[in-house]
């Protein structure tokens, strides 16, 4: 079964869609670049955006590649490759694939029980579960943004709360994750036993310290170029700390 799932035809089907989406990304990039020039934006700013985004994306992409490898044992390589290149997210796909396998009547996500019917059922369910962001965008993106900018225009008179709200939302997002690491450490193995996993906390702390160091270099030494690599390098340091901590 795995041999069929890894056959060239399957690669071709998935590869065609990945190629389409790559084309879409290039198209959006070129359009945004041209529009940036048309509204008089600084080219160096746009170039910095591209380099910073590219360096930042390498590490999470390697993490996603691991997701492909993890799923490829049961689903073959082409389908996970497609799902994780195009729409899916690392933490969703594995969960959905597992649940879909159960719904398809398998005892879990395993290659030994996989049948063609179960496979296409899983593939379809994965598509249906994680497509709503696109569906909402088709119907509501324009209206929603219009509404926001109308509301924004009102608050803009008072100095513009929109920017502060976005920063606050992101702080909330980060805080939910950091809070979950603290909570797991304290109560994962029984309420207030302080014996849960401390690795995520250590990793977050190390990458925060390295980030602080980069910001210090950038501000004190006026080394602006550092900023483009700071996030990727901080993450690398945090991840290295996890590998070292596990080895000890």
């Amino acid at each position: 079964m795995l041999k069929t799932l890894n056959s060239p035809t399957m690669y071709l089907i998935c590869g065609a869609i990945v190629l389409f989406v790559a084309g879409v990304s290039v198209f959006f990039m070129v359009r945004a670049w041209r529009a940036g020039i048309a509204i008089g934006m600084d080219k160096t700013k746009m170039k910095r955006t591209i380099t910073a985004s590219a360096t930042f994306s390498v590490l999470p992409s390697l993490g996603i590649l691991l997701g492909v490898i993890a799923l490829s044992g049961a689903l073959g390589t082409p389908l996970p490759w497609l799902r994780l290149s195009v729409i899916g997210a690392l933490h969703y796909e594995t969960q959905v694939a597992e649940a879909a396998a159960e719904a398809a009547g398998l005892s879990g996500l395993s290659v030994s029980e996989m049948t063609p019917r179960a496979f296409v059922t899983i593939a379809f369910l994965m598509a249906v579960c994680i497509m709503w962001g696109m569906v909402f965008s088709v119907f509501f993106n324009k209206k929603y943004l219009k509404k926001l900018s109308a509301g924004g225009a009102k608050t803009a008179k008072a100095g513009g709360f929109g920017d502060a709200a976005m920063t606050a939302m992101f702080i909330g997002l980060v805080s939910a994750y950091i809070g979950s690491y603290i909570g797991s450490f304290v109560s994962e193995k029984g309420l207030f036993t302080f014996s849960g996993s401390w690795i995520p906390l250590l990793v977050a702390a190390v990458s925060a310290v390295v980030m602080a160091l980069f910001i210090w270099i950038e501000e004190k030494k006026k080394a602006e170029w550092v900023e483009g690599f700071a996030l990727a390098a901080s993450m690398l340091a945090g991840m290295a700390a996890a590998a070292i901590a596990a080895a000890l």
Partner: protein
Amino acid sequence: MEEKKIILTEEEKAKNFEAYNDRTHVIGRVVCIITLILLTGVPFVMGAFLGAMPDFKAVGRGFLSIGIVYFVSCIAEFLVYTPMLGAGGTYLAFITGNLINMKIPCAMNARDIVGAKTGTAENEIISTLSIATSSLVTILVLAAGVALLIPLQPILQNPALQPAFDQVVPALFGAMAYKYYRKNIGTAVWPLLVMSILFMLVPSLTGSTSFMIIPSGAIAILIAWMKYKKS
């Protein structure tokens, strides 16, 4: 030869941007619809090749058990991320996925580097450039990775590296936390405190951290709003 510099009036800039934005919605919608058709069509094309069709009863059961959860979380994602990413960025981000672990921090990072403000034309361009770049990098890394899967597998799955790759998200949020907390510690302390206590008291909530972003974000916005009113 000296490059000729075109100087635009504010009016011309606004007009150019408006035209760009209108086209973005048209293109974004069309591309989303095509991608949706392709993605939901793939299982049937594969099915034709494998000689089997999806079991719709199982799909229905599966959707009721897990799909509903993602449906609700997609509503939340759409509401939260659309204003962060702007029009072009949102279409592209929902097509290419991996929002929380990559696209959102990537766009926020780019935005910080160039100092773009929410809702501005500059922010729209920067976020689209950032997300498009990020998507291309993922596509390239995955394509290269899949092509080199056999030689790469032992390296990537090396037990010594496994713990590092399990911690991509904490590494990301640790660095981002420092960057954002240091300038907004008054706003950050409350959601962090409330979330920490909540996760300590109900550890099972860690399975739904992506939902907890909403109350956590609401607390942060509330505090920011109170500070804003005060000032």
